[in-house]
């Protein structure tokens, strides 16, 4: 049981990291980023090439993933989302645009990287044993890094000037603009940060579970589940949703080794949303 809970925590921490990026864009611009899972996959592939292919140190690969994805995020905002959001008053437009970008990234990844499942050698080897629970060092590293990123992100949002500006935008974009926040520029920063978080999550995961081009949609769907559990647009909700999903998933795989876990999760989610449409911590819609 301890092992199951540890695995749940391990999965949950990564999930939280992925959900943070989605939540950031959602709260800033009210855009649901369908491409989030695809960005995660892209981050994984960058690390695969830099760390597995070019044999550079893992942290260089991590940095490369983060920077590449931050650039992709900027481009998304500048070329796609800004023109559409500026002109359109309908929610549908931004959502379809983001579904389109998801499909585009996925097919580009498929064309350039192929459909093989790619893995890289582990960063650290060895296993700790704590009271009957096996804790591989690699997984501990993943948990540590994810945790570090989350803390860094929260501190950034809490105590720095750009962080404050982003929070102001999330609360009320127009008022923030009136208070002298350059909302256009900070929107780009928001996208860059969010894509970077997805990229980092992808990069950290490659040494353990590998990456393939078909993962994206599934990751996006999982992220949506987390956001719905936790409540959209709230940082604490993203983290709670990620942890909850990780632990439920781990328990599910333990008790139902067949494929029923996610079926049960979906049905449970529908019932849960009937009771609490805004999730655990969400604001009223």
């Amino acid at each position, binding site marked *: 049981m301890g092992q199951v809970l540890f695995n749940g925590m391990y999965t949950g921490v990564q999930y939280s990291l992925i959900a943070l990026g989605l939540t950031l864009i959602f709260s800033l611009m009210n855009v649901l980023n369908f491409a989030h899972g695809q960005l995660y996959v892209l981050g994984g592939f960058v690390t695969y090439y830099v760390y597995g292919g070019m044999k550079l140190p893992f942290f260089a690969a991590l940095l490369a993933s983060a920077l590449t994805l931050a650039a992709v995020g900027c481009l998304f905002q500048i070329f796609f989302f800004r023109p559409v959001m500026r002109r359109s008053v309908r929610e549908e437009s931004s959502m379809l645009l983001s579904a389109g970008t*998801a499909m*585009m990234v996925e097919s*580009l990844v498929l064309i350039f990287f192929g459909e093989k499942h790619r893995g890289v050698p582990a960063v650290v080897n060895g296993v700790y044993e704590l009271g009957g629970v096996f804790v591989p060092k690699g997984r501990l590293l993943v948990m540590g890094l994810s945790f570090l990123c989350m803390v860094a992100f929260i501190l950034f949002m809490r105590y720095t000037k750009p962080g404050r500006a982003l929070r102001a935008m999330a609360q009320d974009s127009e008022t923030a603009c009136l208070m002298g926040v350059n909302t256009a520029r900070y929107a780009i920063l928001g996208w860059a940060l969010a894509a970077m978080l997805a990229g980092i999550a992808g990069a950290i995961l490659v040494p353990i579970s590998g990456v393939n081009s078909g993962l994206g949609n599934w990751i996006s769907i999982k992220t949506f589940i987390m956001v719905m559990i936790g409540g959209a647009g709230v940082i604490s909700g993203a983290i709670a949703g990620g942890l909850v999903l990780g632990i439920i998933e781990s328990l599910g795989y333990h008790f139902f080794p067949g494929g029923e876990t996610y079926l049960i999760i979906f049905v449970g989610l529908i019932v849960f949303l009937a009771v609490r449409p805004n999730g655990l911590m969400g604001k009223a819609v």
Partner: protein
Amino acid sequence: MAKVKTALGASLFLLVYLVLIPWLFRDQPYRLGVLTTASVLSLISAGVWLMFYIGRINMGQGGFALVGGYAAAILVSKLGLSFWVALIGAGFITVVISILVGLPLLRLKGVYFSMITLSLTETARLAAQSLSSLTNGTKGILNLPLPGAVEIAGFTLIPDFASVDKHFAFYFLGAFLTILGFAALYRVVNSRLGWLFRSLQQNEDLASSFGVDVPRLRVIALAICALFAGIGGAFFVTMQQSVYPATFTFQDSTYFLLYCFLGGLGSVWGAFVGTFVLFLSFEMLQGLNQYQPLIYSLIMIGMMLWLPNGLLSIKPPFFGPGEPKKEEARP
């Protein structure tokens, strides 16, 4: 005058759709099959269009279509019912499921509704995979029989599909269902119900304060939407004579949205025009199949950037000039 024009346009369209096209492609069963598929996909997309019409983005249409397909396949292969009963049964089952699911989920608005319906597509796929006593799991249900004959008092209404050219038979059945579906859609939109739906699209709270029973109407819209998906899915599965968990996927759900948007959300015929234009132009670009998702996604992004109101907004709509003009809804 407008009525005459409408009638003229409609009969011209029927002439092309039911006479000219089958005649042109009489020796090309493959092309005919492609056109049949386009018909049925446009029928399924029409459901998504209706959800757009009440201001919801339904990303679960693939899931509903899959439910319809499996329902028909199970009714035919496990219970030995005839295709025609199964077709109606599939529609019925899909509607019941959509109502059960819709009652709690339609309370969610905007992005939340899209997220949960997207999950519905995955739920349907997983259910098809794991309930293997009913659905044969990943292997799917194969070798479905062709639709049999329908006779009333010794008079053959519809011949056995095995005894005639099945490509023609499927084309006409598909065309018939599609025409029926779009006629129903046109009727709904141009009725009192249509006005009520438009009021939901504009502002649900305001509509509610005027005494519109918003929750009931939302469920009605979803039920109609699911009915289209169920019938379309059942027909598609029978045409393919097999069904797998991957018959309708996440990607199909997104394509349905794209079809509607390409045609335009302002006109009832948007889903029809969008599906035919995109699906057929794609068939002509043989050899690009590998890049289909990429090209579709680029079209989708391009549409959002340069043509947000769809193809039918370019020139005055040819079909049905009597439709109400839809304003851009404020969020």
